[in-house]
């Protein structure tokens, strides 16, 4: 049942490229529309898959997906039997971008996949994958808590770890208590 | 004793009260020491010699706690419940004969009396849960009712089995009929009922369930319902429930002693007396403690299943068996 790694990478790439619409076409997600106008749309859409040395990095596949490719990437990994490890953000304040990192592991095969996408820091909106992986629900809420990333389509985007009425996002680099 | 009946009654009631108070207090100590030993630790040691003053310290503390009635509760019933809970145990002990003459009130229907007043107990604990108006307490109250109703039935069936064998409801008479060596005890009356030890086991299990002792302590299920029906009680209100639990254990174990282990009769045929009674009772109480500190708590439906699917059919079977055996021999 386990696919060799290069095959997986190839299949993944094929899947992503078919799933990601060409840069010129209008995005399907209306809420992501505003988000994409600021940053350059073309690099955000192209998927890039890199095989990396596990012993040096701790994962096998480093996938960069476009802002709209997140759900299809998750769906692909779900089909391949991956499980969600974590979702987190990194605040690249210098580039005024927010990176959303999705970690996946495989319960049966020794594979680790990291999928990442960059979104503009001013309007951090990305589609939720909670429908694909219900476990993403909490991880996305947590990322929302810490970074203020808005996961569109999330069923219940309320503070999880912070108090119910919290409006601050403490892991943003410019956070002041 | 040539005292007129009412005075004699009063004296014995006072004696019963003291007996219950002493036992309720020191069974807590026994429980804590016993739990300690089962867990390889000494239990209370620092209050008095071997922690013997521990119950007194607890009582002092409980008495001096602030008294409140939670604003959301039903104040009248909230106060009434602790008063109600102690009374049945006292009434039951009044008819339990500890020796040939050592009984507060001779009643022809001692057995019925114990069961009758035992059933008031349910009302009391349930009211405490209901009056607290606390969600945990109400869940606990509902559990108590179904548990007690379920276990009263096999207990009564067992009692009827014994009633048929003994032909009397007088507890003293029941004990007298078991005089002699220990094979005369009801527990070993295999000719009347080959399943007598099973009957005893059923009675004991029902007794544990009726007194809300582990593994049937649904009412207080700490890990689920915080403190169950007593969640809102504090100070002596709580202390009374604490004591009533042990008083009920004393009643239950006394009854088991009388019905199955020959009451004050000596197992070796001579020297009968209250000491034998107490020894047997304490042994049963020790078993209660032992069981409590060994087993996890049963699940609620498991508890009801045990009663309705196992205990009631088996006790009915022993009832029928006994009647057949009695007719045959």
């Amino acid at each position, binding site marked *: 049942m386990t696919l060799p790694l290069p095959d997986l990478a190839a299949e993944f790439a094929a899947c992503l490229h078919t799933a990601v619409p060409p840069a010129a076409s209008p995005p399907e997600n209306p809420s992501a529309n505003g988000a994409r106008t600021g940053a350059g749309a073309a690099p955000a859409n192209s998927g890039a898959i890199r095989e990396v040395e596990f012993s040096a990095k*701790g994962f096998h596949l480093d996938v960069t997906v476009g802002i709209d490719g997140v759900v299809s990437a998750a769906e692909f990994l779900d089909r391949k039997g991956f499980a969600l490890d974590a979702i987190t953000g990194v605040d690249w304040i210098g580039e005024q971008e927010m990176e959303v990192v999705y970690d996946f592991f495989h319960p049966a095969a020794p594979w680790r996949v990291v999928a990442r996408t960059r979104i503009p820091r001013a309007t951090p909106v990305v589609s939720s994958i909670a429908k694909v992986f219900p476990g993403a629900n909490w991880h996305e809420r947590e990322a929302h808590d810490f970074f203020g990333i808005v996961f569109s389509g999330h069923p219940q985007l309320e*503070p999880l770890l912070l108090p119910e009425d919290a409006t601050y996002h403490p892991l943003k680099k410019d956070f002041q208590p | 004793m040539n005292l007129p009946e009412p005075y004699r009654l009063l004296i014995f009631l006072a004696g019963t009260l003291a007996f219950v108070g002493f036992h309720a207090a020191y069974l807590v100590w026994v429980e804590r020491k016993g739990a300690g030993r*089962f867990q390889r630790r000494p239990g209370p040691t620092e209050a008095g010699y071997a922690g013997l003053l521990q119950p007194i310290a607890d009582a002092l503390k409980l008495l001096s706690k602030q008294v409140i009635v939670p604003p959301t509760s039903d104040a009248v019933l909230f106060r009434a419940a602790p008063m109600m809970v102690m009374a049945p145990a006292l009434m039951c002990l009044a008819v339990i004969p500890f020796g040939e003459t050592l009984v507060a009130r001779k009643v022809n229907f001692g057995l019925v009396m114990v069961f009758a007043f035992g059933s008031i107990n349910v009302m009391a604990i349930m009211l405490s849960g209901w009056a607290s108006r606390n969600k945990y307490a109400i869940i606990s109250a509902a559990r108590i009712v179904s548990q007690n109703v379920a276990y009263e039935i096999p207990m009564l069936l067992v009692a009827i089995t014994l009633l048929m064998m003994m032909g009397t409801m007088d507890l003293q008479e029941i004990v007298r009929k078991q005089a002699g060596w220990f094979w005369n005890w009801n527990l070993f009356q295999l000719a009347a009922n080959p399943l007598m030890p099973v009957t005893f086991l059923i009675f004991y299990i029902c007794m544990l369930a009726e007194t809300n002792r582990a593994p049937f302590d649904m009412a207080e299920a700490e890990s689920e319902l915080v403190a169950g029906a007593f969640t809102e009680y504090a100070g002596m209100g709580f202390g009374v429930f604490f004591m009533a639990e042990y008083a009920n254990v004393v009643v239950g174990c006394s009854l088991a002693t009388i019905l199955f282990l020959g009451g004050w009769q000596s197992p070796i045929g001579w020297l009968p007396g209250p000491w034998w009674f107490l020894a047997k009772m304490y042994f049963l109480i020790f078993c209660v403690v032992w069981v409590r500190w060994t087993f996890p708590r049963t699940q609620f439906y498991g508890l009801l299943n045990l009663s309705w699917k196992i205990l009631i059919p088996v006790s009915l079977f022993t009832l029928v068996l006994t009647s057949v055996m009695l007719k045959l021999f």
Partner: protein
Amino acid sequence: MFTLNLGPQHPATHGVLRVKMTMDGEYIRRAEPVPGYIHRMHEKMGENRTWAQYLPNTSRVDYLSAMHYTHAYVGVVERALGLKPPPRAEYIRVITSELNRISSHLVWLGAFLLDLGGFTPLLYAFDDREKILDLLEGITGARLTYCYYRFGGLCNDVDDTFVRGAQEFVAYMRPRLSMYQTLVTDNIILQKRLVGIGLITSEQCRKYGATGPVIRGSGVAYDVRRVEPYSVYPELDFDIPVFPEGDSMARYRVRMEEMAQSLRIIEQALARLPDGPVMAANVPRVLKLPAGDYCYAVEAARGRFMVRIVSDGGEVPYRVKLRTPSFSNLSLFEETSRGLLLPDAIALLGSLDLVIPDVDR
């Protein structure tokens, strides 16, 4: 229908978890865990401290398996620096990690039985645990928050007393495990409460990312020690206990079996314990990690624990992400507890073996 607020202070939540329950009588319609009552900013602190100063934090995320967490953090920094700890250090890491796993499982056993209303096993388990703590305190100086591993090795070497003590412990613990078997596992009451209760399918585990004994109790032999081997685990012979039933009993059995396996690992590692230094020679004095992101996962007592660090080349981490097993395991609770009775849900919660600071971080 009414709402029941279990916690934040409730004996069954093992700390300060709150579960918002919508109940129908004693049946649970919906039980939504509300974590965050002991959120301690571990990830924020990562951005305020140097790489080395962050070490004590790792012992406090999941205080019951502090060794594993430190292992993961130390491992990720070593991976980024390309450091390799000497073999003796690796073996001692394995021994202490496995001792810590047993002690963590013993706390779980006690607390779980406490949830089920049995008090005595808790004290027996703590009694056994004290023996492990004595061993670990002897070498690390602390009972709970060890902070023993260093980048490139250990903070100090073990002596013969520890080795002998560990051997004695292995010999002592085996009969104790069979005692637990008689006292607890075989007990009919426990069986009735756990068998068939709180079913979790392997598919649910995958969807929620549940790991550790939870996924192994659902029939998937996922163990980071096998799948992404680290340290010297590949050289040691041990089994991964798997039970396919997916109920609370399966998770219970997985943990009990894991303790026996940990004893096996400790025994082998003690037998092979090489001589030599416990600290790599080429550890830089001031740590500056090359820029990039790195992951390192270990099998902690509760499942897969992963540290993901992002370095911008400085002395201070740019981002530290702790992927904790309890977080994912608890997120499963809402779905699996639906329709259960309250005591069963509490058994389920106990069988997930939660450490709340591990959820909240």
